[in-house]
């Protein structure tokens, strides 16, 4: 089936769904939200994504139902177009090209009954009447500096405007049509910023939310009565009420949309890929569910289905009540590792207090067949005296004991072993420390086991030490100064005698473990090196002038199998090889390395630094009217430019074969997943 494969980058998902307020259709059955360059249509009852409205080439900045036809919706985008969609069938009806690039309507609320628009910015509230002149009001600033307006909502029937403030107060403004005689009342429950306000369609209730992640329902005119919906998971960014008032919908800062029935009960949760403040764990693939695993919500690991672009579940690592308060030091999951079989998961959580010492916990989770989830087996508090730099399991499947090695800034690496207790009354095996190793009081940076589990390589700055895990004997040391080791990988299968490492001063080295000598080295600035678990191939990402290049090679020859200039703009922070469900049998030399696995990587999009894209490389073999057509064309252009440029590799490497870098003329292209 695959004849002329061409490798290109496809954006696989992970876009934000909480950047703009979602829209609920008039029958409350569908929910539309802007997600990156497309609009997603979800069912409010089943949480499933029904349609992806694709067509925009820039970020979608707003979605609105068409007032004249409730089955159609407008979307506006940063590419300068407004598109009209039939969202029940997912069909593009019309493309408008308005003269100015549309911007999102921020903090403005049209009141249809009384015809005015309110807008609030900073310390100023302005009401624009359609018929009369503008009413403007400046909040006096005597009581402190924190009563800046943050959000605004107008009552559908009465002349009342609700404003949220930075100090957590909500003010209800009345009688503002007369210049001097306006009045206001204050409601106070939130302890920090009110981020969103919304009236129900009848105007009987006012909903407010903020960083506390509590939805507060105030009765209009009976403000002492409140209903709460606590523990929604993350700070509320938007609140939307369906046109019939039956459903509320809140967007949260953790890329989540919660659908709430009007009796203040959660009915559905639509969860996207959570992007925490920093991606501290690597991207991993759970060997059982084939889901991608990374840290998500504070104190959680998320399991994300790559095939369906859907969050499968969150595993609570910290198991503590999350206190929503800014400036509070929280426990974060910083490291995680799976065994090859997926039976064990190790996680490290840490909390850095200001003056007290670092709190570290190493937790080991066992997969429970009955409940089909991970169950906490052992908690090791303070496994090291300083931050853990790397952690890996012994990946061999046939070894008797399961072993975990963790390296830390305190200069030690520790081996943890699963041991069955000698006494019968203890239930089941637990983990304990087996060995503590150090090397000239240097700080270990990374560790890796060989494929058969017989060797452990730990890098101490510029020295790689090779240990035997069975006897804990230091077998040999390898070094290629200057420059500290950044990444280490053992070769697999036919290349298992090689150890590949990258150093901080732009060197990629390959050692032969049989001769304990350097086999080859090349000068390239590698930011990320990773090995495919199912084949001998290794991938190296090299940042170069704002773009990142990808090289795929086998350790036994210093010649790339495949190279891709400017895979993406910006730096590739994390990447992972995900095994394919079914193997491909491509014979093309340049695409053979994708037969067993797919390469996924996470980039920081340059256009919008907060928007994280998860991309992958795919092979396409036939054409279709996909939006990737444009992307492909763009990349092809880039690559042809790059091709004419000089080779970035030094003379030590043989020149790239022409066929691998050159892009074949693609007669047809089709998204092949």
């Amino acid at each position, binding site marked *: 089936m695959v004849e002329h494969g061409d490798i290109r980058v496809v954006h696989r998902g992970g876009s934000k769904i909480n950047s703009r307020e979602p829209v609920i259709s008039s029958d409350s059955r569908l929910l539309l939200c802007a997600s990156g360059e497309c609009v997603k249509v979800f069912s409010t009852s089943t949480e499933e994504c029904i349609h992806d409205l694709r067509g925009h080439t820039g970020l979608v900045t707003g979605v609105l139902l068409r007032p004249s036809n409730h089955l159609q919706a407008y979307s506006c985008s940063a590419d300068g177009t407004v598109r009209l969609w039939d969202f029940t069938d997912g069909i593009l009806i019309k493309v408008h090209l308005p003269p100015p690039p549309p911007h999102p309507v921020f903090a403005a609320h049209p009141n249809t009954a009384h015809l005015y628009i309110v807008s609030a910015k900073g310390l100023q509230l302005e009401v624009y009447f359609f018929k009369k002149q503008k009413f403007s009001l400046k909040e006096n600033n005597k009581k402190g500096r924190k009563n800046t307006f943050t959000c605004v909502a107008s009552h559908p029937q009465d002349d009342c405007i609700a404003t949220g403030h930075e100090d957590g107060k909500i003010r209800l403004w009345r009688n503002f049509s007369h210049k001097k005689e306006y009045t206001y009342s204050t409601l106070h429950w939130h302890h920090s910023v009110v981020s969103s306000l919304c009236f129900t369609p009848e105007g009987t209730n006012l909903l407010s939310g903020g960083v506390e992640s509590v939805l507060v329902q105030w009765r209009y005119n009976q403000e002492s009565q409140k209903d709460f919906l606590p523990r929604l998971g993350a700070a509320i960014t938007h609140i939307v009420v369906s046109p019939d008032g039956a459903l509320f919908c809140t967007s949260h800062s953790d890329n989540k949309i919660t659908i709430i029935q009007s009796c203040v009960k959660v009915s559905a949760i639509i969860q996207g890929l959570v992007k925490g403040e920093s991606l501290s764990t690597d991207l991993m693939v759970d060997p059982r569910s084939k889901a991608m695993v990374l840290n998500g919500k504070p104190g959680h690991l998320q399991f994300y289905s790559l095939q369906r672009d859907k969050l499968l579940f969150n595993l609570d690592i910290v*198991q503590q*009540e999350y*206190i929503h308060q800014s400036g509070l030091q929280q426990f974060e999951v910083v490291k995680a590792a799976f065994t090859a079989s997926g039976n064990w998961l190790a996680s490290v959580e840490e909390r850095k207090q200001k003056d007290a010492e670092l709190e570290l916990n190493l937790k080991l989770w066992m997969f429970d067949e009955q409940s089909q989830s991970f169950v906490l087996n052992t908690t090791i508090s303070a496994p090291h005296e300083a931050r853990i730099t790397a952690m890996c399991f012994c990946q061999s499947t046939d070894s008797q004991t399961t072993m975990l090695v963790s390296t830390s800034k305190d200069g030690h690496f520790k081996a943890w072993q699963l041991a069955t207790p000698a006494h019968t009354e203890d239930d089941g095996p637990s983990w304990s420390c087996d060995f503590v*190793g150090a090397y000239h009081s240097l700080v270990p940076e990374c560790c890796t086991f060989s494929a058969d589990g017989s060797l452990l390589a730990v890098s101490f700055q510029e020295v790689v030490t090779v240990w035997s895990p069975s006897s804990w004997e230091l077998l040999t040391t390898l070094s290629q100064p200057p420059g500290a080791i950044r990444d280490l990988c053992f070769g697999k299968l036919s290349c298992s005698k090689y150890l590949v490492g990258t150093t901080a001063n732009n060197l990629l080295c390959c050692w032969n473990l049989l001769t304990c000598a350097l086999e080859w080295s090349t000068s390239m600035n590698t930011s990320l090196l990773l090995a495919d678990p199912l084949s001998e191939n290794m991938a190296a990402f090299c940042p170069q002038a704002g773009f990142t290049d990808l090289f795929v090679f086998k350790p036994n020859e210093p010649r790339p199998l495949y190279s891709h200039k400017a895979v993406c703009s910006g730096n590739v922070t994390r990447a992972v090889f995900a095994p394919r469900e079914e193997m491909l049998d491509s014979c093309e030399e340049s695409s053979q390395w994708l037969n067993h696995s797919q390469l996924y990587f996470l980039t920081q999009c340059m256009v919008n630094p907060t928007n994280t894209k998860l991309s992958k490389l795919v092979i396409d073999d036939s054409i279709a009217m996909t939006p990737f057509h444009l992307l492909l064309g763009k990349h092809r252009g880039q690559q042809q430019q790059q091709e004419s440029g000089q080779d970035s590799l030094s003379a030590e490497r043989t020149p790239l074969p022409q066929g691998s870098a050159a892009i074949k003329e693609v007669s047809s292209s089709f998204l092949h997943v």
Partner: protein
Amino acid sequence: MASYKPTKITVYPKLGEKVTQDTVYWKNYKAPIQIKEFGAVTNINFSPVAPHNFAVTAFTRIHIYGPFSHEPVKSFTRFKDTAYCGRFRSDGQLLVAGCEDSVVRLFDVNGKVALRMYKGHTKAVHVTDFTSDSYQILTGSDDYSCRLWDIPNATELNAYQEHTDYIRCGQHLFSMFDGRVDKSVMTLDHGQPVESLLLYPSEGLLVSAGGRFVKVWDLLKKGQPLVSLKNHHKTVTCLCLSSNGERLLSGSLDRHVKVYNTTSYKVVHNFDYAASILSLALAPNDESIVVGMTNGILNLKHRKNAEESKEISGQQRRRPSYRVFVKGKNYFPKQDDYLVSKPVKQHLAKYDKQLKKFNVSKALDTALEAWTRLKKPEITVAVIKELDRRGTLKNALAGRDEQGLSRLLYFLIGNLFDPRFAPVLVTAAEMILDIYQSVIGQSSVVDRQLLRLQEMLEREIDYQQELLEVLGMLDTVFASSLPRKEDESEVGALSARCIEAR
């Protein structure tokens, strides 16, 4: 919407002895009964037949005790000198005993006077026993000889003269004799004077005790030594096998009785006694342990019967009846019924309920209640830790009166130096000092407690100092003693372990 996650109480591993099935079994004895004998108790022997009386040889007498009486039911006093080794025959009718005066006496357990006297030895007879066919008696004496006697005729059948030392149940070299042959079959060298011998019921293994060692020999493999146990630090004097043959007991002059597993030969339990142990016996079915000591005290321990042992474990309250739990649960909805599921109520501890409502001071008060503070300090510490994590510990600690503050300080004094709690409590202690430094001097109670705390802190710092010194010394010792190649990693490992231990 997730439910409230309760405060995590850290479970610390229990220190001290692990409870195994063996400890449960061997601890299941009543308080010991002590009986004063006339001299050192050299031998105890249980009658093999019910009611399992036992003969106690002490000085010039042999007393026979019933299984539960604390007075002798019978005593043999017709010895002219110290009696040795009073033993029952397998039918429990006859008792044989040696004596310092070289005469071996045979008694009927119901009679008073010796039935037979076997004369032939020239020196004190320390060892006497019936042969397994129960018609002959074997004796061993200080005249280096062993003799076999016919019971009814009181004649000497055989004499073995191969020994070269006193026979006190054996010597340096102890020998196996076959009654049918004149010469020893096997000679085993224990290395030290042998104090006691024990033959397994299967007759395949022989256990010998001598010096500090207990050795097990495989007789079927020509007396090959199987294992040598060195668990006592003084001479082992007596050996005994438990009724099921799976445990071996050894008593020693170091005042301990050790129980070994006979498959792994590991010590599984240990009894302590007040004086050096000379003799030891177990009743059939391990119903009682009898130990004789050098100070003439006989120590009896009886096994608790089933009801008594249950009483101890069954101290819990009476639970509500079955009906209470079944109430409303045994109704199954019919076909047309619409089932409204009741939300499961999450049970929270009192401090958790208060934490859920952000009542931080109240939560701390709850955690500092007397029972929690004294019995479960880990709960109090967990609540303090949780408050610290929430950043509200200062609020919770502040605004306390004299009583509240002294309660807090009292808890700190008690637990601050526990290494499990120290990281959390040091933070709390610093905060308390920050908050209340303005009121120092207003209350004598608080001042006294603060002084106490200071004093303990100084002592703790001294300890740490000393430990660091020891650690430094250890490092130098290891660095010089270990071979060059491995020292780097191992010293690192060792010092890391020492730090952990500290």
